């Protein structure tokens, strides 16, 4: 008997010790939610229609040039709705050629032939879905990169729901909404630069080759893979000249990346590539070289980046190329900016309320249950310690509703103790000896405690799945509090009773 109590004590001390270790000092280890720390919460909607329209407009250009190549002169080509290309004035004698051309080149489009010189191409729903999906993923990636670049600690950037067009951005500590808004809407820096030399294993090695000093027109840039390249400082083309990029296949049916430049970019690019066939062109994003493929031929307005890509690599590279330009415009549909002073105020008030709740409940328990009440208050304090330990361990943020959850837990978690104590009193009234009454009280109250708390946890889990940010914080503290209260009320309180009364020769009376 004695042995067992000692083991229980050790377990309890370990749990408490670990909890304290995890959250002390709280100012460093307890992560605060936006509403307590101050910061910015944004929900962005990616206007995916833009991406669909953009695709359509590019396809219109492609169609025009193809028609030109074939010498088919049509009256008018224009975009309709968001995913329709309308063609008017197809000469009747070339209808068959037109048909053949569309069928050969526009597999992604639904097309039902020319009627009275008119034709309509509708983007297939599956393709539209893919474009939309792609647009949201791209925007998310772009924003994540930008936020990282901005240097905000512990940002949360994620999609709301699995297939929605909304992105949640949480930026703790940000007190400058204007700058952040600009950051999210500005374009990242993409540059294509001619490689002079490389790769080098280290920066020093690269420098050595140039006698320790680099000419003004060159610079050393790290490569994402590894090593360093010496590249020309002036970018041949920048992200501003890029229209889009996507994964495609080359003439050997291998994964590659296709990109398109706007008119200005095309002019510059043609000049650079025609003069530098055989050289490497570094694709630089935020001063890091993503890759450095060789220029195999003169490139005009669009091009293909070939290399020994896997499909995924090609996809990623295309994605990175696109990062420069957001795929679609972004609308802020929810924005909450909490100033640091409000957060500090909330913390002060939350602490005050928690302290008062704790004192009131403890006084009440001791008044009602005497020594057993002291036992319950010890369990309660341990419960608090475990909650903070678990919060810090899981890196869950403490929010204002989270504090409310803790205060609620203070009131609710003594329930398990109350259930047990009432049961012990009942057993005592029925004439059981104190020790037998304690044993029976704990044993009989346990199923009730389990049933009652499990259902509360079920409710809290639904709350968690519903909630956003702060509400999630509330659900988390509630769940942790309930689980901790089962441990403290059942296990810790029992151990305290055992320490107090068990093993003694004769227990006449217990204070309850």
């Amino acid at each position, binding site marked *: 008997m004695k042995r067992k109590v000692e083991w229980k004590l050790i377990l309890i001390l370990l749990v408490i010790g670990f909890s304290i270790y995890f959250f002390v000092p709280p100012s460093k280890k307890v992560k605060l939610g936006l509403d307590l720390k101050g910061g910015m919460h944004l929900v962005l909607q990616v206007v995916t229609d833009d991406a669909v329209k953009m695709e359509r407009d590019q396809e219109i250009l492609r169609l025009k040039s193809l028609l030109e190549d074939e010498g088919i002169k049509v009256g008018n080509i224009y975009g309709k709705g968001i995913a329709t290309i309308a063609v008017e004035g197809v000469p009747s004698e070339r209808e068959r050629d037109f048909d053949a051309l569309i069928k050969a080149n526009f597999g992604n489009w639904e097309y039902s032939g020319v009627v009275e010189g008119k034709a309509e191409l509708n983007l297939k729903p599956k393709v539209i879905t893919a474009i939309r999906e792609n647009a949201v993923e791209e925007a998310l990636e772009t924003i994540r990169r930008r936020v990282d670049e901005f240097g905000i600690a512990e940002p949360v950037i994620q999609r709301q729901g699995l297939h929605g067009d909304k992105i949640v951005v949480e930026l703790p500590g940000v007190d400058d909404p204007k700058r952040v808004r600009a950051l999210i809407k500005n374009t990242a820096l993409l540059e294509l630069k001619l490689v002079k030399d490389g790769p080098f294993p280290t920066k020093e090695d690269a420098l050595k080759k140039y006698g320790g000093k680099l000419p003004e027109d060159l610079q050393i840039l790290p490569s994402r893979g590894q090593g360093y390249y010496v590249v020309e400082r002036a970018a041949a083309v920048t992200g501003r000249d890029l229209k889009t990029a996507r994964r495609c296949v080359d003439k050997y049916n291998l994964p590659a990346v296709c990109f398109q430049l706007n008119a200005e970019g095309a002019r510059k690019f043609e000049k650079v590539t025609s003069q530098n066939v055989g050289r490497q062109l570094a694709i630089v994003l935020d001063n890091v070289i993503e890759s450095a493929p060789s220029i195999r031929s003169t490139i005009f307005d669009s091009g293909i980046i070939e290399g020994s890509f896997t499909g995924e690599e090609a996809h990623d590279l295309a994605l990175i190329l696109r990062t420069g330009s957001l795929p679609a415009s972004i609308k802020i549909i929810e*924005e909450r900016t909490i100033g640091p002073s409000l957060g500090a105020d909330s913390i002060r008030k939350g602490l005050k309320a928690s302290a*008062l709740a704790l004192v009131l409940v403890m006084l009440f328990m001791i008044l009602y249950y005497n020594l057993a009440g002291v036992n319950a208050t010890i369990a309660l304090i341990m419960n608090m310690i475990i909650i903070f330990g678990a919060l810090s361990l899981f890196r869950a943020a403490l929010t204002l509703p989270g*504090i409310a959850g803790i205060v609620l837990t203070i009131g609710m978690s003594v329930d398990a103790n109350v259930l047990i104590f009432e049961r012990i009193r009942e057993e005592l009234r029925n004439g059981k000896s104190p020790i037998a009454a304690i044993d029976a009280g704990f044993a009989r109250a346990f199923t009730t405690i389990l*049933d009652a708390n499990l259902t509360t946890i079920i*409710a809290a889990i639904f709350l968690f799945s519903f909630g956003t940010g702060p509400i999630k914080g509330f659900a988390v503290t509630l769940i942790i509090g309930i689980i901790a209260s089962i441990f403290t009320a059942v296990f810790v309180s029992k151990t305290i009773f055992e320490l107090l009364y068990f093993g003694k020769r004769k227990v006449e009376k217990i204070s309850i």
Partner: protein
Amino acid sequence: MEIFRNPRINFLKAKYIAFLISGLIIIAGLIFINRNGLNYGIDFVGGTLIQMKFSHSVKIDTIRKELKKAGFGSAVIQAVENSSDEYIIRVEKIGTGEEEEHLKIAKKIMNVLMPPDERKLATEKNNLNTLSESEIKDLLAKSFPEEKATIWAKKIGEIKKEKKIIRSFEELLEAGIPSAPLNYLKEKTFIGSISIMRVEYVGPQVGKILRHKAVLATIWALLGMLIYIAFRFKFLYGISAVLTLAHDVLVTLAFIYFLKIEFNLQIVAAILTIVGYSINDTIVVFDRVRENMPAFRKKKDLNFDNLLNSSINQTISRTVLTSGTTLLALLALYLFGGEVIRGFALTMLIGVIVGTYSSIYQSCAWLSIWNKFYGLKGLLK
């Protein structure tokens, strides 16, 4: 200490009166909510919320009048904890749908509430109370070394965090900002009488989705309970529990309506928590009923109401005690938790009382009624 010593109260005797009262509250609530709608916060209808602190006290009527003049007649104005210098202003869906509309609204509201002489000043200089720490740093860095500017800006940020609003340059001097940067700030900025503590904007489409999600989460939670209890007890117990919870939600909603509590995300959290709390209470009683069954079967009279009553009596002190401690904690939260959490605390206070009451006068009352209809079949395990 003991509140109840061997109570033998016939709780179920009053069940029809209880049903009547609950029914009336629910029906009245539903009718009014249906007609007038809840006092939805911006979470659910969209709109802009601004919390601002004034350096002096301002009457709520003055704010209302000024806002009305500027075209925000429907704005909801709320004093933070009955103070006269801190307000939350809610403007619901002006709805031009224009991008960054909320920023314009915030700016306009601030402009309207500024004293006239300050309005003029604001066209020339920046209000130090609305500049962020990084903006102050950038400003100072224009004529002081970067590190110094950072330190001073941080210090000013802390003062603002502590006091919510800076009232004079002297305050900064006392707090240890040297006179050189202070003079520079005096030249470039002014101390405005308004400091913005929070700006929230929620687009109208968000609210629709949220409302849908809130209803779904509540229904799923109820279903989850039904399944768990039907599994652990019997089906009729599950039905009783879910009816009880529906009762709790509806009665609480009625109170939310009549007390004009702002219905926002936190209130949804409160309602779901009440569901969890109430089921807790109900289960404790049900558990006791289950435990008393074997002894009950041996009896001759087999009066199910007696079984229910004695189970309620056996658990009543626990029920009262736990509600008591929970109410104590919530009271602390209501009184001292601050404005943001007050609606939540009030809703929970109501819900805990309702949930405690309903574990007797709904859960057990329904069991008693099933017994009248179906006999003991389906109630004994």
